[in-house]
């Protein structure tokens, strides 16, 4: 566990940089987290995915897989990988302040 500061607020993250407590997350933190993942600017489709991740996590207690993201977030798999080249489910979860999704698909 590490304490890092995003948008002027201290938050705890795990060894991989995922939030330990998703309630500590605010929208203002997202652009800073995105920069740590080499995403320069968060565009409207980025936000669409981030908000979807938050909503899915709130509803189900776990982040969605890429397949679910592609089917239900309104952003296609192809576009998801353009937005988050290092892995949409993983990177978007980190930026959205939710735990890393654990799944094989």
């Amino acid at each position, binding site marked *: 566990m590490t304490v890092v500061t995003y948008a002027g607020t201290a938050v705890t993250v795990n060894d991989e940089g995922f939030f330990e407590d998703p309630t500590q997350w605010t929208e203002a933190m997202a652009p800073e987290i995105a920069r740590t993942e080499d995403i320069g600017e968060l565009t409207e489709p980025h936000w669409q995915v981030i908000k979807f991740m938050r909503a899915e996590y709130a509803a189900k207690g776990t982040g969605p*897989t*890429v*397949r*679910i993201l*592609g089917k239900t977030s309104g952003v*296609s*798999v*192809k576009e998801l*990988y353009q937005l988050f*080249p*290092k*892995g*949409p*489910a*993983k*990177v978007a979860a980190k930026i959205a302040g939710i735990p890393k999704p654990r*799944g*094989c*698909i």
Partner: protein
Amino acid sequence: MSDTIEKVSIIVSKGSLEGVYPALIMANGARAEGIEANLFFTFFGLDVVHRSRIDHIKVATVGNPGLHLATVAGGLPGVSSVMTHYLERKMEKLDIPPIPEFVEMIADTGAGIYACKASVDLFDLTKDDLIEQVMDIITVGEFYEMAAGGEIIFT
């Protein structure tokens, strides 16, 4: 040696359901982790990128001790289809896509999908027989060039 994997090239040589899924899951999983991935379909693995065969990949019910089904029973007509259908239903519940959707999704992740030239020639196929996601029919030499600097996985 680096402690992270940057690229994987996965060879698919089998045309059975249990021979194909591990490779697809590994390719898709690599992309999900931001790892570059290429799939190279050879020999009976070509069925996975064959337009009319991709929808009919079945589990091997004969000569497959892991299935715990007597070979005599596994050889009866329709048993392979029934077992395949049973597994497909279970996989759908686990959010594992059917093979055609999975291959399309893997292509959309930016993974490369290639067919082996020797196998395409052996089975008298042309690019028109293959699904649109196949980027090229390549030789083993071209495969090695593409795989250079990464891990190679044979399934």
